[in-house]
């Protein structure tokens, strides 16, 4: 974005964090639910545990998803949910993608 913040080209609305397809898949999947368990997201987007773990850390650091750990009986469970910031970023990113593709 330009210094005066007035740039409107859709390319400038793309979110670097969401430019990686796997991260975009995670965020898009979480946009459809209130929250989801780690294993459910892994199955929904068909990735391995380590890949999902790694990308979740990045998305959590960016503030796009929140992670809640808990137990069900003795089994540890990790719950993921999209933050409002993440939801807004996804909306912006998708709008920019659609606009860019339409322009090409």
């Amino acid at each position, binding site marked *: *974005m330009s210094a005066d913040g007035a740039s409107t080209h859709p390319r400038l609305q*793309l979110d670097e964090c969401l430019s990686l397809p796997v991260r975009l898949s995670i965020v*898009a*999947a979480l946009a459809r639910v209130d929250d*989801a368990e780690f294993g459910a997201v892994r199955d929904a987007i068909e990735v391995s545990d380590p890949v999902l773990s790694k990308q979740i850390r990045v998305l959590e650091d960016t503030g796009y998803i929140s992670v809640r750990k808990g137990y069900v009986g003795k089994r540890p469970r990790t719950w993921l949910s999209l933050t409002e910031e993440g939801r807004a970023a996804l909306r912006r990113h998708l709008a920019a993608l659609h606009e860019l*593709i339409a322009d090409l």
Partner: protein
Amino acid sequence: MTNMPSHDSHLSLVEQLRAAESGGSGGARLSRSAGRDGARYAAVMAALMALYLLVVAYVYPQEILWLDIVVTAVFVSGMAVTCVRYGRRRRASSLGWSRRYSVGSTLSAGLFGLGMALLVLTDSRDVWLWVPYAVVTGLPLLVAGLMRGVR
């Protein structure tokens, strides 16, 4: 946000869009399944609440202590087991579920409490009153389970 996206080729943009679509459809499947589980759970809780109200209306006045204790234990443990099982099996919650469920269960609990108070205050046990009232008691929970959220 970035000034110079590293993958701004057409192929990369299309790939991103496909990733978003496939993630979105995975999330939609998850949401549908969570919605079905939530609806089942809410329906069972609604039925237990409505039936328990009828038990209080028609079984308790017979003043058979062991029967009162047994049916209360059956309903309370039924609700507890349903709650725990749902919590254990839940893998996701559909959009707006927590808010819908809170509103539905609060309304149902309120109607249940009002029904209990009326049962204590009145001797009336008319079927035409209490059966529909029991159905109405469970209705908010049932509606909360059947509604689908959007954002």
